[in-house]
């Protein structure tokens, strides 16, 4: 409940609205400058040095200047609109900064796509407590549905996203129906099996999926503009990677808005009540099996658009990409960002995609360092970076 949360906040010490907005804007710009610098500094070592200094500064100010830290946090949370505007501007302007090197545009596009998928997985993991370790299977179904309907059935790319979403929703409903009597650890085992089955089917059903040869997806177009062409905004010319960058960004923003609405409404409240105490929820009119089933289907549907965008952006899919490793990456995004937090999981996606890219310089040490980063975050923030209020205080009943 947005109203319930706002009750807990104390008013900003400075009553001047403009002062609060200016502070919020300054902090937001600072955050995005730091992030941009982290990504764009060519030397990886310098990047991580910068990150270490920034984190140390935050930690020190939290410890030794708690009041200032609180004021800064309040400014952001109370002037969320300012932060959102600055963020959207910053993210929209990013391709301008890296016009000459489209590689980072491509990486951030992947962040958006994974962030979109993480919204769906968050419904399973964060909101309803269904520990789905086979989300890559759904992701694969989304990607293949979209690719096959474009390549073999001649559908337009945008319509194929609709088909993929519908198919993922139906598959999610099916899994939900099959697992109606299981929950917790047993449910994760079923989803693990599901992920493996989808992978095997993608390899072996060559008549449909072209097997390990993979599927090539032609670049889509929109209103006569081909996504294979460079993007022209008046005098500004952006590389062709920017097409999918902005498309994926719009989809991600829509998904975040959707998640927020659902999470703050009676639906999110029902899910939270059911997750924490299924027996009690049943005694208050909530049809637990049916609600579980449809929430699973809802979370699965996100994989349709995510998979379709993924296929379109990469231009080529093959079964190997949708391995258990992808499921684990997605789970890490949700847990790291903060389960049940619709914007936290996007931060999780950002970290999980950008950090390994920045670590390329360290070669074989890469995954070791990556693991260390994850460990350190979860040691200091056991509920993820930005835990949802509901999650942080819950204790499962019964």
């Amino acid at each position, binding site marked *: 409940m947005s109203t319930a949360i706002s009750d807990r906040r104390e008013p900003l010490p400075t009553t001047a609205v403009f002062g609060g907005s200016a502070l919020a804007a300054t902090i937001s710009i600072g955050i995005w400058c730091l992030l941009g610098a982290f990504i764009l500094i060519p030397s990886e070592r310098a990047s991580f040095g910068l990150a270490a200094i920034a984190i140390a500064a935050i930690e020190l100010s939290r410890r030794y200047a708690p009041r200032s830290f609180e004021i800064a946090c309040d400014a952001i949370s109370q002037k969320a609109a300012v932060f959102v505007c600055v963020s959207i501007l910053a993210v929209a302007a990013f391709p301008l900064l890296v016009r000459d090197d489209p590689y980072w545009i491509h990486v951030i596009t992947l962040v958006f796509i994974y962030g979109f998928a993480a919204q769906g997985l968050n419904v399973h993991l964060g909101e309803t407590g269904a520990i789905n370790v086979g989300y890559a299977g759904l992701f694969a179904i989304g990607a293949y549905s979209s690719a096959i309907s474009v390549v073999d059935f001649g559908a337009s790319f945008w319509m194929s996203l609709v088909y993929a979403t519908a198919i993922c929703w139906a598959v999610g409903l099916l899994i939900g129906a099959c697992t109606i009597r299981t929950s917790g650890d047993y449910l994760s085992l079923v989803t693990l099996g599901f992920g493996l089955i989808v992978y095997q089917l993608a390899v072996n059903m060559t008549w449909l999926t072209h097997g390990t040869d993979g599927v090539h997806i032609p670049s889509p177009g929109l209103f006569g503009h081909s996504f294979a062409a460079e993007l022209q905004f008046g005098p500004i010319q952006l590389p062709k990677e920017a097409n999918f960058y902005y498309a994926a960004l719009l989809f991600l923003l829509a998904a975040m808005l959707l998640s927020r609405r659902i999470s703050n409404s009676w639906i999110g409240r029902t899910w939270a009540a059911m997750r924490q105490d299924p027996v009690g929820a049943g005694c*208050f009119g909530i049809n637990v099996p049916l609600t579980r089933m449809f929430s699973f289907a809802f979370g699965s549907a996100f994989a349709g658009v995510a998979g379709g965008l993924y296929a379109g952006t990469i231009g080529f899919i093959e079964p190997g990409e949708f391995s258990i490793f992808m499921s684990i990456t997605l789970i890490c995004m949700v847990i790291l960002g903060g389960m049940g937090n619709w914007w936290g999981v996007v931060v999780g996606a950002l970290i999980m995609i950008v950090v390994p890219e920045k670590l390329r310089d360290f070669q074989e040490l890469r995954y070791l360092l990556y693991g260390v980063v994850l460990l350190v975050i979860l040691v200091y923030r056991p509920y993820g970076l930005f835990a949802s209020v509901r999650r942080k205080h819950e*204790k499962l009943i019964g």
Partner: protein
Amino acid sequence: MTFDQIESSAATPLLKIRDLRVNFGGVRAIDGVDLDIFPGEVVGVIGPNGSGKTTTFNVVTGLVAASGGSVRWLGDRELVGAAPWIIYKSGIARTFQNIRLPLGLSALENVMVGLYPEERSNWLQVILNSRRQRNRNSELHDRAECALRLVSPALALSPGRLVAELSYADRRRIEIARAIVATPKLLLLDEPTAGMNATETRELGDDIKKVSAAGITIVLVEHKMKFVSDLSSRVAVFNLGRKIAEGRYDDIRSDPRVIEAYLGKRRAAQA
């Protein structure tokens, strides 16, 4: 419901339990219980631990399957075999002996969970955040606040506080508010004063009187005899899965079977 209405409908019981049996393996948790609950009553159910009081509640609310017998609701509806959410929608709400509240939700959100069957807005309205959805939401919001105010005016002043931050007594009050928010016909309270001190118990007694005065029939499982005698118009005594006595508190207090159930055979003979 006014007193006249209660009198006139007193002939047909709200809830009619007949020859109810529940077996857990070889254990006969409930062994042929008959019990009638009439509209407007406050019925106390007492008895030693393991006498089948909570199990009876669990059967009525659909959490435990009966091995035999029937539970008739409003004269004709059979509740044995119905799902808990169906039973709640037909007008029976309950609280639990060990408080079952999602700790991560606020006091008000928890009460609003009880209004789930009345959420009329569909997914599309939620996603579009339509005017109708917002109106509906604020309407239910107000109703939940009313229920919260009834059991605790103090809590209603800070409805956004998380249950995890609240005291045990406040959690009990929220549980009762959640159970009455949808104005059920019958409220089952399972040891509502467990873990409460004398003051809190007295306050809770007042709350229950308010709920009863609002026209809700109440069945109360309780161990504190003073509490039961103050509130109940009628008391049923359970022992070893059977109802051994029923009547006004003062009458059953001197019943030899009741004394035997509580104190044992030899002591009862001495008394």
